[in-house]
């Protein structure tokens, strides 16, 4: 179901770079405002320590030591990983329909990974030691610590994605250079260091291999591997253990990522009248993927609930019973289920389909997956195998400082897209022109 957008001209592609609207400035202000709110709160955390969160020790301490920060960390990593898997699939399997949004997905990956990293930074008690403690310990601790596996793999992913993005950007920049803003010339020159058109063929092959590496790594290592292993390998908490966490995390990552791409793409299409560049077919296709991944997500939740309540060991049974009696859990499940049903219904009755409705469904899915992730962390910690303590299960509601960080990271992602879209084309030249055309 390939869609031909090759009729679109370069003017359309360069519209974000060549225009400046009042709406843009307003969006910039909102993004900066969100970041500002978070910074204002974060200063308190720097001054007083993590006591400004609503976290506490589990056990006699009556709380949970990990909360929204870790939940949001997994959520952002999930969005990031799904984004890059999607873009890699476009290149590897030649899913040309999605070519117009491939770069947006890659950019989303970079932004979301940065936010995930930020959440680690603000989660730890001594951010000042992150470099001095982690680097010397790396060779030893990477053999044991799942957290170190995470840091390693996420760094590797960041590097892969950035390389991948850079290679494809060079191609576009070299061809569009005369139309790009002259004041950024030094930046473009830096981007193009050593570039010659003869590298295109090599780059194409490199990009293919990078995409291949990403597709292989993602389920084995990333959101199907080291991230769930952070929890699934521990002997302490009943709700975390087990092999289902890998597939379950991966399904959540893919569901959230497709939602993220839908939202970002719809925003650009709306802002720059890109109906021709990012046609309906892209959204219909993304919607179907959303429905499909949502179905897998729900199926894996079902697996966990059923195995958790039917003749499960006492502590797991207890944890599962509490999980399914938590209203918020059903809100999360409901949001994903609603999105899935909408998407499937609109494929049966195409008249039901509309991009705004899909965006609403996607926002719902993102809220749902965030809630599910935070609940997974928090409720997991509330149901330790050793529950003799009065303080188990501990109590937790995120504090204003913690919630503000969520707003801050959303602001950072928005800001990132606003800035990047003024500097490089956020849709590849390949989407509108074939290689050959460009080369001649």
């Amino acid at each position, binding site marked *: 179901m390939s869609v031909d957008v090759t009729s679109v001209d370069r003017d359309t592609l360069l519209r974000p770079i060549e225009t400046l609207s009042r709406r843009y400035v307003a969006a910039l202000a909102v993004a900066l405002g969100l970041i500002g709110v978070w910074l204002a*709160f974060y200063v*308190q955390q720097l*001054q*007083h*320590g*993590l*006591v*400004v*969160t*609503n*976290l*506490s*020790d*589990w*056990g*006699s*301490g*009556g*709380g949970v*030591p*990990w909360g929204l920060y870790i939940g949001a960390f997994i959520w952002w990593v999930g969005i990031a990983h799904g984004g890059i898997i999607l873009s890699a699939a476009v290149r590897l399997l030649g899913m040309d329909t999605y070519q117009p949004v491939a770069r947006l997905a890659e950019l989303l990956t970079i932004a979301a990974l940065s936010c995930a990293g930020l959440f*680690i930074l603000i*989660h*730890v*008690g*001594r*951010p000042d*030691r*992150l470099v001095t*403690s*982690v680097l010397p*310990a790396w060779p*030893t*601790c990477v*053999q*044991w*610590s*799942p*957290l*170190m596996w995470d*840091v390693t793999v996420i760094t590797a992913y960041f590097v892969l994605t950035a390389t991948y993005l850079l290679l494809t950007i060079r191609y576009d920049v070299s061809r569009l250079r005369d139309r790009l803003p002259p004041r950024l010339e030094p930046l473009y020159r830096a981007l193009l260091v050593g570039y010659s058109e003869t590298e295109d063929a090599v780059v194409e092959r490199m990009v293919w291999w990078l995409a291949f590496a990403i597709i292989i790594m993602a389920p084995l290592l990333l959101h199907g591997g080291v991230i769930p292993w952070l929890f699934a390998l*521990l*002997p*302490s*908490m009943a709700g975390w253990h087990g092999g289902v966490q890998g597939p379950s995390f991966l399904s959540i990552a893919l569901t959230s990522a497709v939602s993220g791409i839908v939202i970002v793409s719809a925003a650009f299409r709306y802002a720059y009248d890109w109906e021709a560049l990012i046609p309906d077919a892209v959204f219909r296709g993304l919607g179907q993927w959303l429905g499909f991944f949502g179905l897998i997500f729900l199926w894996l939740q079902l697996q966990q609930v059923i195995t958790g309540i039917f003749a499960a060991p006492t*502590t797991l049974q207890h944890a599962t019973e509490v999980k399914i009696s938590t209203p918020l859990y059903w809100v999360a499940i409901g949001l994903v289920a609603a999105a899935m049903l909408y998407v499937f219904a609109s494929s049966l009755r195409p008249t039901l389909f509309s991009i705004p409705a899909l965006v609403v469904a996607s926002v719902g899915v993102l809220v749902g997956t965030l809630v599910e992730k935070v609940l997974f962390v928090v409720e997991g*910690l509330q149901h*330790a*195998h*050793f529950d*003799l*303590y*009065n*303080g*188990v299960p*501990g*109590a937790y509601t995120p*504090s*204003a*400082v913690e919630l503000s960080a969520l707003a801050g990271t959303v602001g950072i992602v928005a800001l990132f897209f606003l800035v990047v879209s003024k500097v490089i084309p956020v849709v590849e030249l390949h989407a509108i022109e074939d290689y050959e055309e460009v080369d001649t």
Partner: protein
Amino acid sequence: MSTDDDSLYTSPDDEERHRRLLDETEYDTELGLEMARDAQRVSAGELSEVEFYRRYHERIVEEFDIDDREIDLPDPDEAEGSGEGFLDDLGSVLADVDPETDESRRSVMQKGAAVAGGLAVGGWGTVQNAAGQDGGGGADAPGDDEEGTRWGMTINLNNCDGCLACMVACDQEHNLSRGAHWMYVFAYEDEGQADENFLPRTCQHCTDSPCTKVCPVGARHTRTEDGLVLTDYDICIGCRYCEVSCPYGVNYFQWGEPDVPESEIDEDTQYDDRGRWVGNRPPEGVMGKCTFCVDRQDGAMGEDLVGTTACEEACAMDAIHFGDLNDPESAPNRHLREYREAQPNDTSEFPDRKEHTVSTFELLAERGTEPNVTFVGNEPSPHAEQVEGPVTYEEMGLVDDRKEVLDDGATATQGGESA
């Protein structure tokens, strides 16, 4: 390890025994003992292997009349880099001295040199581990082997009356912030047990500790020399992964500024014998938990207090017994033995019964952590419930639920700004 007599000599008795052994030989008693002492320093990491070599090489040659080439000792500078220490070589060289040509040398090997060489070789393995990453992932943790010291406890629940004196003693000695209880005493009711029961809970100093495995920076580690599970306060990044992975809930993070400022803490109680900051309360943003009173074990509070803990000392009911589990005569082993002996089983009619009627358990043994704390009494069932004890936490001036303290801190620091 190369010799029969390869346990680490720690007590004065041992030294006396070796003096007598060495005195029987025609060789220099003082040299043998000095080497033994310094070999221990090598194993504790206080003395480098090369320095040990330099110090004794000449005198060994003089005394035992073996010259350089015969011994074939490696160049000391090379010894640094090579995987095998020269002490290993020394041990094997001494062991290889031909018994037929020199009978007296043989006796030196077996007696005097066994003290020096054997001990040093025994200690060397320890240094090599310590130089890397002490028990980083648990693979090189001391384990249950019968060598060296392995600190542990026997806690007799039948003796505990829930007075909470141990909690107070630990909180005070380590300057813990309100609500952080490295020692925590449960009062609980359980099915099939008539009365209230009590369970004092320290860190279990697990031999296969998940907390050391998961720590991303190696701050949480097992001290190789004696199995203590400690947190290096200078390295910890405060990720709280150790806390999340511990099945017992014994970790207490320093969420805000500590109640007791740094200036009021005696530095001797903070740095252990390796010079690492692992003792007393943690600074802000760093993880803390029971250290088995590492400062006491390292002699920072006087030789008398080595082998004791604050909680043990505070216990008037003789419930807590701390000591070296590898020493059959240590307090935990002796208590267990005597307690069992005092409650013999009737085997006259049923010879297959075990010899005593004492029930013991390790907390959550099925989690595979291999705790170094053994409890005497009945293990709380999954249905046990914590209840208010005869002495409440408030009566002892303790805060039970730390979240109350932290919530105060959170609102106090946020002032009216937060919505």
